[in-house]
């Protein structure tokens, strides 16, 4: 059993506006390392040298101190299954528009990490914060209205996508966010239309849609709420390259933790990477 501690440096490259143009202008770094147990959150700590490391944070133009306020931060998050630690001491900080790509072999705990960050499983250790407020302070539902999770595998649900979108929009916590929002939330239909989903699909039963259609509709329902950070579990696994590119385009500027097996996609979308070992 290998227990490895990962450190992530939230101090990331360009601000969201600078990043919205070419992906070539986006900064891409891998910040995963086998290291002694450390729970450091500080962006100024130099990363351990050696393994698969991009230039240290301090080399980045916006650093040493990235002053953008963190949207999502986590400290010392661990998860064990049946006495075996899948990951330990995970720390991360995402500022507005950052995308952390999580990679690793099957069974490495990628989905479980998302469930911890999304508070869908009880937090066994560590702390989470969104916009400077701890998860405990937010409380489960208010947290999940901000740090929303897109479930894996585009499951078949009862009813139609249209019903689901309406149900999500009328949740008390979503309505509260709506009131705080300056801009109006986009419509899920308009979003999904950009990804090639026919408008008629919204009135069909989930069970009659293909997995690719379900995946786009579910992502549209979730993304349309513009969560502060989005936890994505292989959101384009059933999409063709054209639809995938369109989805990636719509997700630009959306703060996210993104699990993907697709190395090329990881390079396109990530501002930082976390490798989980098996």
């Amino acid at each position, binding site marked *: 059993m290998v227990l490895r501690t990962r450190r992530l440096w939230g101090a990331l490259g360009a601000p969201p506006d600078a990043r919205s143009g070419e992906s070539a202008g986006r900064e891409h770094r891998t910040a995963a390392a086998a290291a002694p147990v450390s729970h450091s959150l500080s962006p100024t700590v130099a990363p351990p040298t050696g393994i698969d490391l991009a230039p240290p944070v301090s080399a980045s133009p916006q650093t040493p101190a990235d002053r953008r306020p963190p949207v999502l931060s986590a400290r010392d998050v661990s998860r064990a299954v049946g006495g075996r630690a899948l990951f330990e001491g995970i720390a991360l900080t995402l500022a507005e528009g950052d995308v952390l790509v999580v990679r690793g072999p099957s069974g490495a705990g990628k989905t479980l990490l998302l469930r911890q960050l*999304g*508070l*869908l*499983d*009880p937090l066994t250790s560590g702390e989470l914060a969104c916009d400077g407020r701890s998860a405990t302070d937010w*409380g*489960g*539902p*208010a*947290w*999940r*209205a*901000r740090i*929303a*999770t*897109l*479930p894996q595998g585009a*499951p*078949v*649900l*009862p*009813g139609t996508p249209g019903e*689901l979108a309406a*149900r*999500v929009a009328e*949740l*008390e*916590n*979503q309505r509260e*966010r709506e009131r705080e929002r300056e801009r109006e939330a986009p419509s899920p239909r308009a979003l999904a239309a950009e990804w090639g989903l026919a408008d008629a699909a919204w009135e069909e039963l989930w069970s009659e849609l293909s997995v690719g259609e379900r995946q786009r509709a*579910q992502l549209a*329902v*979730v993304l349309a*709420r513009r969560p502060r950070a989005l936890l994505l579990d292989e959101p384009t696994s059933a999409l063709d390259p054209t639809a995938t590119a369109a989805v990636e385009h719509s997700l630009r500027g959306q703060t996210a933790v993104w699990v993907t097996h697709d190395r090329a996609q990881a390079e396109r979308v990530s501002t930082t990477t976390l490798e989980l070992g098996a």
Partner: protein
Amino acid sequence: MNGPIELGWGQLAIAASLVCVNGLVSLWLHLGLGRRLLIASLRTCVQLILLGYVLVAVFEWRSALGVGAIAAGMVLLAARESVRRAGRSYAGIGRDSLLSLALVGGATTVMATAVIVGVEPWWEPRYLIPFLGMVLGNGLTGISLGLERCLRELDEGRVRVEFLLAQGATRWEASRDVAADAVRGGMVPILNSMTVVGLVTIPGMMTGQLLGGISPLTAARYQILIMFLIASATAAGVTAVVLLSLRALFDEEHRLRIERVRRVRGG
């Protein structure tokens, strides 16, 4: 009209011979029901005769405490029965069922004797015990169906529940459809019987009152009262038990804890 014709043991023996016909059919068709039929018939005899003796004692005793004790025993048995054959279960299911049956059964029955009928004293066993019995008997069916449905929908529909939770739903928002479905499921039998009562079936209590020499119109009014009691108690009882079970299966951070649902073998 006077009381009914006295029914003796000899006459019951003739009725028992009818059940023997069932036994013969079972043997002939190899249904393997003979043993169960025998046990069921014996249970019917023993339980009802015991009930007769207990009621004789309670009616003569006329003590509020005694009636209370009997009522408590009835509620306990009903609660146990309502969760016994469930295909899915969770720790505390018996407590939740007991709580709902006790509150709802007690409130409805006391309302009926004290306010509606106006019995003096309100705990008069001749009224209270049959009312309670009917409310509990139907309530437990409703509760057991409602629980069954609730746990199944949560278990099989957890993807949707979690999808809503993952977008910030509270446990009540996420399980609204499950709860509505479960309450509806628990209400089906009583709604059905309210629809066909008097057309297809003559209810047991009305039969008894007719045999007892009460005027059919009075008997009909009593039966209406009973149906209303049962319907309201079932609705309240199923709703209460569904809400209690949802409270038990979500945690304080509004997470679905589906691992708390236990599948019962053979269920």
